[in-house]
């Protein structure tokens, strides 16, 4: 008996969408779309502006990095060793082979 009732309830519920009517959309739908569309081209330009600025900053950084490395004086190994010896007062008569 209980099973029969459940089946009946299930079937009735499955049939509850019979005769469902189409609902009207908001009467101001076009107006709302229209006002959102007004800001759409501006929003697109806005994003494009950000992209251009980001690319410019990246380019500036790359150019700066390249010119920094170009102008940087090249310090030889000899110069580094001499500087180390001088800094730590290691000068002596010995001729160190390195």
């Amino acid at each position, binding site marked *: 008996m*209980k099973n029969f*009732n*459940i*089946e009946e*309830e*299930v079937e*009735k*519920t*499955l*049939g*509850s*969408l*019979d*005769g*469902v*009517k*189409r*609902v*009207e*959309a*908001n009467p101001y*739908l*076009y107006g*709302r*779309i229209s006002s*959102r*569309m007004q800001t*759409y081209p501006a929003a697109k330009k806005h994003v494009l502006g950000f992209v251009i600025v980001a690319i410019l900053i990246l380019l500036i950084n790359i150019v700066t990095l390249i010119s920094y490395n170009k102008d940087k004086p090249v310090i030889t190994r000899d110069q580094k060793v001499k500087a180390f010896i001088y800094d730590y007062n290691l000068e002596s008569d010995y001729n160190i082979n390195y």
Partner: protein
Amino acid sequence: MNDSEIIEKLRSGDEQSYKLLVEDFGNIVFNTVLGLIQNHQDAEDITQDVFIEVFKSVNKFRGDSSLSTWIYRIAINKSLETIRKNKRKKRFAFLHSFSDYKKEAEGVTDFVHPGVLLENKERASVLFKAISKLPENQKITYNLSKVDGLSNKEIAEIMKMSLQSVESLLHRAKANLKKSLANYYTEKL
């Protein structure tokens, strides 16, 4: 005006044609989205999104389907985007707080479709809850069939499937709904 004439006018930016399009398809789109999303406010927002997408994508429309089929597809895709986004929110809701998580985890609130007959509203609310738990393709085909009243052939065209696939999806959807409803009524009685 036939579909290609409407498309040409839309591409040329003719506002009057766009307005007519919204008038012709506004209710159709809203009802499709409402059945899937089960929330009136969200359905309104998504309906607007659909027509904005139609405007943005009109140059990409190749004419390999009818205009109405194309619009239905956009409506379904936009609805699915929202459903998936809401599911992700629910999955990470526990990160906010335990009390918020409980509210989120309780899931969809009782949806009352405004177009359902008065005597069926309570049952329809139970049915919509069960529909919301169906796998995506079953949910879409069931809604297009029962809520939108489309034929299986029309559904097959919209979903780019064979007729047999649509029939199979509807059959499985109904079987799953029966199981879900049987569990619901077993617990209730």
